[in-house]
């Protein structure tokens, strides 16, 4: 979707204003926000493309007025509700009230180093040959999918040349939609 995240080429956001000797975290809660997001992701209920889609599905006014970790947390709440791990009642109470879905796994402290070191490689064996070869002239689609896509708006409809053919990779547009499109349709829009 070409939502608020699709920033390439937009104007009006002002100067970059890089901060000197920037700390990794600003308010201390950003540390917990990073960790909660990664450990909740460790349950394996959604993939990275679904979590990106949850972030870009925030209302533009909300997205642009939120810091990056605020965006993460707001999207995480959406994902946790969507997959049955938390409810509005839990959030309103600030503690566990309702039962939760059973996760595939829980990321334990002892396993964190190995999990971070392994990461989540996204290359996959693909049986068919690549459709395009280096040097081929192509034109990008000009489309407006409602799901996640990695084609930014500024590139839509543009002409280009294939520079390199890499091995097979997960296609974010479809891994995301196959798993959760129906589920999302049944959910009220966030905000």
């Amino acid at each position, binding site marked *: 979707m070409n939502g608020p*995240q*699709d*920033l*390439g*080429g*937009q*104007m009006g*956001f*002002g100067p*970059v*204003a*890089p*901060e000197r000797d920037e700390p*990794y975290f*600003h308010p201390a*809660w950003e*540390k*917990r*926000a*990073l*960790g*909660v997001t*990664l*450990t909740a992701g460790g*349950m394996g209920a959604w993939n990275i*493309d679904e979590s*990106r889609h949850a*972030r*870009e599905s925030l209302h533009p006014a909300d997205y*642009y007025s939120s*810091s*990056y970790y*605020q965006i993460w*947390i707001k999207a995480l*709440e959406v994902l*946790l509700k969507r997959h049955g*791990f*938390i409810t509005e009642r839990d*959030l309103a109470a*600030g*503690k*566990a009230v309702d039962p939760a879905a059973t*996760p595939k796994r*829980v*990321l*334990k*402290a002892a*396993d*964190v180093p190995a999990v*971070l*070191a*392994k*990461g*989540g*490689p*996204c290359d996959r064996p693909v049986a068919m040959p690549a459709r395009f070869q280096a040097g081929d002239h192509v034109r990008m689609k000009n489309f407006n999918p409602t799901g996640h896509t*990695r084609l*930014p708006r*500024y590139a839509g409809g543009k002409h280009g040349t294939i520079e390199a053919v890499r091995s097979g*990779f997960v296609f974010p547009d479809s891994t995301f939609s196959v798993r959760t499109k129906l589920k999302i349709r049944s959910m009220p829009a966030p905000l």
Partner: protein
Amino acid sequence: MSHDHDHDNELDPFAARVRALETILTQKGLIDPAAIDVIVDTYETKIGPRNGARVVAKAWSDPAYADWLKRDATAAIEKLSYSGRQGEHMQAVFNTEETHNLVVCTLCSCYPWSVLGLPPVWYKAPPYRSRAVIDPRGVLEEFGLTLPAEKKIRVWDSTAELRYLVVPMRPKGTEGWSEERLAELVSRDAMIGTALAKEPEGEPA
């Protein structure tokens, strides 16, 4: 909950929101709060731009390694044990006399964590993400970097999984330097493309 926590919450509603979420997930047995501590410690003290600087210094010192890094950055970086989350698939882009490279993620904040650590706020914020692809020269000026008009700038907008590492040009006057010493000249921003490698200060003794 302790008094300190309540006090934090009064100061910052978002701190309270994050704390509530962590509490709910912990009470339900869905997350291990100690795992959060390990994650934070990892990115505060273990994984940062020093990793990438070592990769660059090695490429400057060892032509065979530089060639490998150019052809297969994922494997070449793994050899130094700097692979991992958000660095699973890597491409190194080399600055030359003709071309300067600049990395952005216009759609989110894709960034090579395993070699650069967590991204700075400006990398994740709308001003950089929006303008890097239409006004890279103007963006670099804001970092105090003015490139000659004839120098080409190549902007790499990150894909879903491929992460880019800029290999800056080796400064003159560093012949014979050790990799450790060379790595000191390589800043995080130089590996994003918003800076050049630092010039050596004075002549080595």
